[in-house]
């Protein structure tokens, strides 16, 4: 067992973990931040995507010990300070970018990472960036629309 301390959504947190404790499990079980979902547990689906030191990572494929001292942002950190939905979250609601919602936390975190890197992505760039996020309900079109809308662009899709 080892002690780990990190900043999660702006708040300093610490815990006692095993070497094999995944970051996703630390977030969900120790911190009770259950917005981060574990879909496949094999780094395919992206539902567990969070930001570590500003970078998108799959929290099911990183050990909590490796995030010691890091800045972590999860879906719980994406709302505005007053609790209202953030720009990307609101766009997902407005454009019906979710159905069952299981993949949505990972989709929103991926979208946030993309828009930080590339504030005005093309539709093709959005689709390419979402390569590691799987959605079994929507067929992706509305997710892509939501992300384009969140970037302040028109949402006419070539692929539709």
């Amino acid at each position, binding site marked *: 067992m080892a002690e780990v301390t990190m900043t999660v959504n702006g708040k300093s947190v610490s815990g006692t973990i095993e070497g094999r404790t995944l970051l996703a499990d630390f977030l969900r079980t120790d911190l009770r931040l259950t917005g981060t979902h574990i879909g496949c547990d094999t780094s395919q689906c992206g539902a567990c995507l969070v930001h570590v030191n500003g*970078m998108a990572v799959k929290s099911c494929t990183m050990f909590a010990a490796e995030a010691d001292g890091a800045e972590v942002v999860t879906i719980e950190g994406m709302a505005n300070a007053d609790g209202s939905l953030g720009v990307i979250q609101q766009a997902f609601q407005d454009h019906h970018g979710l159905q069952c919602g299981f993949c949505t936390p990972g989709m929103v975190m991926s979208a946030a990472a993309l828009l930080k890197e590339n504030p005005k992505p093309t539709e093709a760039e959005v689709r390419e960036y979402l390569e590691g996020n799987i959605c079994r309900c929507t067929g992706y079109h509305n997710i892509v629309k939501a992300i384009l809308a969140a970037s302040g662009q028109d949402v006419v899709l070539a692929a539709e």
Partner: protein
Amino acid sequence: MYAFDIEQPKTIAEAVAALASDEAQALGGGQTLIPTLKQRLASPETLISLTGISEMQGVCLSDRGELCVGGATTHAEVARMAAKSFPGLSGLAGHIGDPAVRNRGTVGGSLANNDPSACYPAAALGTGATIKTDRREISADDYFQGMFATDLQEGEIITEVRFPIPEVSNYQKFLQPASRFALVGVFVAKYPDGVRVAVTGASEDGVFRWTEAERALSASFEPASLEGLSIPADGMIGDIHGTPEYRAHLIGVMTRRAVAAAS
């Protein structure tokens, strides 16, 4: 996963000392090792994480025209840092897995694992890279020794990879649509003294050089030079995703595309 401890050394020397134990295993970005541990296919007592070692991070240019990449540098970092100086390598690094995987996976981890379908082995062999470890330098031509097999000794760490920068180069891969690994990937690099062609994903012996294509392309670097050349299906991987014949055919297709796209 079985239980294990994690150590996070800050220097190469500390990591080498920690890896001297029989039950210790190096951990790069973990994008292959963590799934392997989850399946209980490995049971180390201690994982030695290499990602916190600052002397193994980053990308620079050497006086000899090589791109020097620290062993713990992520694919995303290579994609960014090599975009101008070595677009062929940048393109390869920027299409491994997906963005989140590229933010964790490292060049040293990929080469140490030597998955027969991984992309980086094609770049290392296709450029004649030098693999620098904590104790020696290994030429890529000697380094790869078959599927998941390398010249690395127990506890040896890849600290840096030096890729000679070609005049032009390109990497083309045909994706296995579920895993996103290369069903077949071909790296083509043109140097003043000749062309190198390295193939990943196809052979049961792992990454290899297609010397016949190298000779033809060294005479004239254009897709037409490959007309009439083919690779026998013997020794190619056959599975539900593709037969040996299919993979052998794809090698020709991917090589032509890489030559046409080289920049």
